[in-house]
């Protein structure tokens, strides 16, 4: 009896010899790797920027002035303008922990509407453009409604929408291409984004400027407006966002509608780039934009990353594509390297995530 009572009094015995220190933060002793990790965590577009600069330097050394000229470097901008614009739309959706597989289809559909409304119904081209922009926004709104109100997963909604819009695009256009010459003659405003100007050997197009301005504006809006903070909050944790007073439905609707509108602008830019209105364009734009976003360091799990990174991501792909072609490498090497980059980018993202914010 006394034995047991003595033992029951001895609770603390088991804790003897364990550290007596209490929990504490030791942020200040991170070491070099930790510091880098923390710095990258705070500036998510830095990794793709470093890769981009490194790629430009490497190809510049290998190819000399052929690659490292204002002409070639701005050519890369022209080649990535469509993917860059679409990647901006994709970034917004991915920041809300969604994904938009219908971006390319919305882009093509909008360009077909702009072309066919002008040439089939004889509407003034500027009106057709507004119709095209409206169609893009409307498709985005349907996506947004299904995601935020009906609570369907974005992957499923946009997977379905991709097929619906693409099929509608082929049915409506009757697979008919409107030729560049006709557009130039009767509706040159459709080719506005292709208009170019020289700045000391560098060639810029309206489409390239549009892409850069769009990304800067979105970047500002995401960092410095309430709407931007809501987008990040919804992507990070929609329940917590809701509880802290964010209107999740309205935020999601705004993101998907804006995404649709940006894709419609991409459709307009597409006409400028290829001259004609072709219903077969842009079918891989969804994959290409996701590639740019992932390489650009935006987390597919939402709430993390900078839209500037997506631009760098698109540019990295563009630099590799042109650089390898100039070196005379088989096109397969481009795909192989981009595949490696995608996996590396996600690995780096996971590593950075290990830092507490």
């Amino acid at each position: 009896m006394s034995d047991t009572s003595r033992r029951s009094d001895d609770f603390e015995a088991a804790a003897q010899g364990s550290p007596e220190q209490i929990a504490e933060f030791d942020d200040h002793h991170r070491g070099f790797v930790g510091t880098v990790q923390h710095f990258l965590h705070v500036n998510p577009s830095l990794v793709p920027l470093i890769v981009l600069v490194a790629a430009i330097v490497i190809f510049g050394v290998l190819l000399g002035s052929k690659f490292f000229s204002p002409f070639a470097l701005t050519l890369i901008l022209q080649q990535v303008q469509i993917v860059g614009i679409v990647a901006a739309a994709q970034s917004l959706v991915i920041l809300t922990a969604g994904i938009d597989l219908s971006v390319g289809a919305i882009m093509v559909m909008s360009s077909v509407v702009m072309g066919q409304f002008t040439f089939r119904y004889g509407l003034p081209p500027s009106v057709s453009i507004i119709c095209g922009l409206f169609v893009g926004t409307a498709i985005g709104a349907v996506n947004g409604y299904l995601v935020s109100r009906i609570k369907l997963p974005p992957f499923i909604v946009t997977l379905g929408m991709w097929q619906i819009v693409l099929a509608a695009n082929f049915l409506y256009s009757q697979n008919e291409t409107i030729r560049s010459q006709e557009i130039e003659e009767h509706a040159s405003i459709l080719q506005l984004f292709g208009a170019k100007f020289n700045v000391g050997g560098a060639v810029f197009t309206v489409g390239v400027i549009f892409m850069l301005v769009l990304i800067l504006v979105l970047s500002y809006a995401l960092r410095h407006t309430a709407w931007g903070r809501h987008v990040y909050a919804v992507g990070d944790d929609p329940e917590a966002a809701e509880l802290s007073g964010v209107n999740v439905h309205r935020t999601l609707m705004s993101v998907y509608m804006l995404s649709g509108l940006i894709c419609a602008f991409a459709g307009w830019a597409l006409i400028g780039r290829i001259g004609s209105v072709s219903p077969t364009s842009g079918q891989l734009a969804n994959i290409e934009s996701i590639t740019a976003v992932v390489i650009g360091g935006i987390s597919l799990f939402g709430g993390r990353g900078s839209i500037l990174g997506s631009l760098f991501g698109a540019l990295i792909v563009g630099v590799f594509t042109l650089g390898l072609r100039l070196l005379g490498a088989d096109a397969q090497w481009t795909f192989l390297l981009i595949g490696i980059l995608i996996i590396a980018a996600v690995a780096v993202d996971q590593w950075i995530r290990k830092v507490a914010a």
Partner: protein
Amino acid sequence: MKLARLAGATALAAAAMAGSAMAEGETVCLITKTDTNPFFVKMKEGATAKAEELGMTLKAFAGKVDGDHETQVQAIETCILDGAKGILLTASDTSSIVPAVKQARDAGVLVIALDTPLEPIDSADATFATDNFLAGLLIGQWAKATLGDAANDAKIATLDLAVSQPTVDVLRNQGFLQGFGVDLADPNVIGDEDDPRLVGSDVTAGNEEGGRRAMENLLAKDPTINVVHTINEPAAAGAYEALKAIGRENDVLIVSVDGGCPGVQNVADGVIGATSQQYPLLMASLGVEAVKKWADEGVKPENTPGKDFFDTGVALVTDKAADGVESISVKEGMDLCWG
């Protein structure tokens, strides 16, 4: 009671429908790579019209995208099950489709490859196609004759289809190079030639976007390119936009293959110098006729003498005829164009 009557009526209706299906005559299947490409749209039109004329039933199938092999195999299986007399096939994957084709032939179905030869070519009972090598050869000869002496120091770019070098791509590319007088090295491979006039080649996926990008890449390599071979007319239109962007659209010769209506119109406008036109409608209608003959008389179609396929013809379309190269005018081309 009611239920029994309903069942009876249904059975009667089913029997009537079966009867009407019998009256429709034999079934012929058309399996294309996609049902969105105007080339295949035209093919379906030709087959439908001919089947109607001959009192046959046409069933059309297509892959979802170019390269969708799986759906084509399913389509072949469906046609065998359906008791089709013949299958007209444009294969997405020319060698992997062979076992499925063998299965159909073993079941007594006549299989005719349209447009795209299988590998090996005799895996099908017959092949109705354009001579793609000849199509390339014609534009090569035309480009050489048009340039005259300048052909000896031309700077040539070839805009091809895909990295996998499908047969149609290789045939057009190599035909063009031979026509232009370039030593082919291995005629089954694109890109192994060592003629100094060749600047390089790039892939386009056969559309405007790819054509523009590929042309830009090659111009970055050598801005003095003055002869461009393109796999088809959409790629040519894209290449033209790239040339226009640097102000060289008037001093570069673009040649192409296909003969679609927008492409022929581009020849009229001087975007493309010349194009070789092929005839999808004819391929399909001749195919349906051959299946009818097989069904009625058990006779299989024969090859064009000297070739291992039935040649459905090709014609060079240009308004700038060159000496020694046979061609038709843009007007004639417009009358025969598709898409």
